[in-house]
């Protein structure tokens, strides 16, 4: 069962479920510092993909995997 709640900052109830999150959003969801998220990426504990301009995005499925909810 999914328990991941989208961050309040950028989503509303009208929006469809997000497929991916920025580092900032991922940090808010996981309750850790930004640096911890980059560290997880650097140590390959979590997979991130790059948007067109090089910005990191983390798939919702990856966050769910990390939270053991998938």
């Amino acid at each position: 069962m999914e328990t991941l709640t989208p961050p309040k900052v950028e989503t509303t109830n009208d929006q469809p479920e997000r497929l991916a999150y920025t580092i900032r959003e991922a940090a808010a969801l996981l309750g850790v510092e930004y640096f911890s998220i980059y560290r997880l990426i650097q140590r390959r504990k979590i997979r991130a993909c790059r948007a067109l301009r090089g910005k990191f995005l983390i798939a919702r499925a990856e966050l769910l995997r990390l939270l053991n909810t998938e």
Partner: protein
Amino acid sequence: MIKRNGQLCQHNVPDYPGRLTDAEFIAYNKVFPLIEDSFNHFSIATNSVKTVENSLPRLIDSRLSLFDNEEVTTIQQHETQWQIIEPLVKNPRTELLFCKRNVEGKDEFAIIERWDENSPLAQAQGACQVQMTSNDARQLLQNFVSGERETLQLWVEDITGTAQEKLDDQFPHQDLERVVAAISHRCMKQIEAEKITAHAQSQNHDRPIRV
């Protein structure tokens, strides 16, 4: 004065050796506030890494005196007990701890990341995560700092990519590469290595590091 696209390059921005045109300067000032929060966190993280880097000689020595101190703090990671030598980084939601334990008469050192135990990540994965271990404290700390610098580099790429995306959204069809370069320079200036005390880096050790 140099001109670019018919505009004078006359605006200075922090840590960028070039000067920006009016259009570039407007774009810079519009976009930088959008990434400022991440940049500020990045600056704090960079300073933490530099502090650890500059403390390497003392940290390496501190492992020797650990057991002279009767008040030793320990943490439990799964079924393993580690003694905290010193917190390397301390933030409201994350701590990085330099730790030690004794296994069959040999010292083993570790870098352990401890998250806020109430965070969703800690509740799912456990509050303490061993980042790396080694029998060689010096090598461990050097590898840790090196990993942290690689992580900061990823962060710069993310900030730069985000800035590029915002510029494309807000100023389509304009060549604002120099604005991206200025933001990238500002980040890179933060992580420029300071002169590290040679003591910690002067000796090569070939003991393996387990990550």
